[in-house]
């Protein structure tokens, strides 16, 4: 066996049991595929993100607002309103704020990658203290959902109005790589 591998196992005898007792310790099996390994790692670090779809009627829109308020006030979720966040970045003249302003000034749509870059900064800089978020105005299109899940975090659940009725349903999300509205 390689000397480097031997050396790790020698020091690990004492070190790993100590860390297991005194820290937030998790063992990840890396014999499996890289995709599965990364999923196991992301499970440990990704925040809880709930996407609330726009309401189909006035009543569901009201319900959506009530749910957002309840999640924020009673359960500590932070509502990430994209419009306000972009305005905020712009006012603070951050790099991403300036990049977005350039896009708007040249009459271009702000690309999903730029919005996700902004969200990533906000979502992960407060970790692990703030780890529950609501996305209410983003993603709106499948490309945006893909970009968000591929580059930032998986969406744990989607709350949406069901059909023509004035009710809201919750779906565990394992299928956001499809057109979002077509699911409902």
């Amino acid at each position, binding site marked *: 066996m390689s000397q480097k*591998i031997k050396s790790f196992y020698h020091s690990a005898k004492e070190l790993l049991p100590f860390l297991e007792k005194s820290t937030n310790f*998790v063992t990840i099996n890396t014999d499996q595929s*890289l995709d599965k390994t990364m999923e196991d790692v992301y499970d440990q*670090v990704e925040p809880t993100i709930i996407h609330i779809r726009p309401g189909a009627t006035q009543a569901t829109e009201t319900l959506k607002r009530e749910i957002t308020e309840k999640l924020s006030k009673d359960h500590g979720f932070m509502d990430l309103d994209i419009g306000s966040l972009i305005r905020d970045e712009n006012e603070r003249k951050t790099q991403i704020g300036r990049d977005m302003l350039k896009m708007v000034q040249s009459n271009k749509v702000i690309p999903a990658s730029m919005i996700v870059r902004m969200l990533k900064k906000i979502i992960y800089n407060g970790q*692990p203290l703030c780890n529950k978020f609501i996305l209410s105005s983003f993603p709106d299109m499948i490309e945006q959902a893909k970009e968000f899940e591929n580059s*930032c975090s998986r969406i744990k659940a989607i709350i949406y109005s069901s059909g023509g009725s004035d009710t809201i349903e919750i779906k565990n999300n394992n299928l956001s790589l499809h057109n979002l509205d077509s699911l409902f």
Partner: protein
Amino acid sequence: MFMLGPHASGKSHIGSKLAERTNMNMINFIEFVSSNNLGDADDETVTTALISKLSKEVKPRVILENFPQNIYQAKFFLRNCKQPSNVFSLKCSKEVCQERMTILGEG
């Protein structure tokens, strides 16, 4: 965040993907020791130097690869710095590690 595991278990690859996704910086402790000529220094000295570097980091969250190397460094770090948010111990069979090292030309 600490990232530990035997050689060729995937620390660098997994760490860099995680750092990119979560807006974190990554520091390889072995490279840090070598680039600061701390190869002969004791555990307390190298850990103090690392803590000092962390205090100057612009990004508040950092992945430390290959740290701690032993229980003394771990204890000293926990006493004098923040508790890590996560400690990942990468578990990889000796055969797979050896195979990866051969592929990398390190066998």
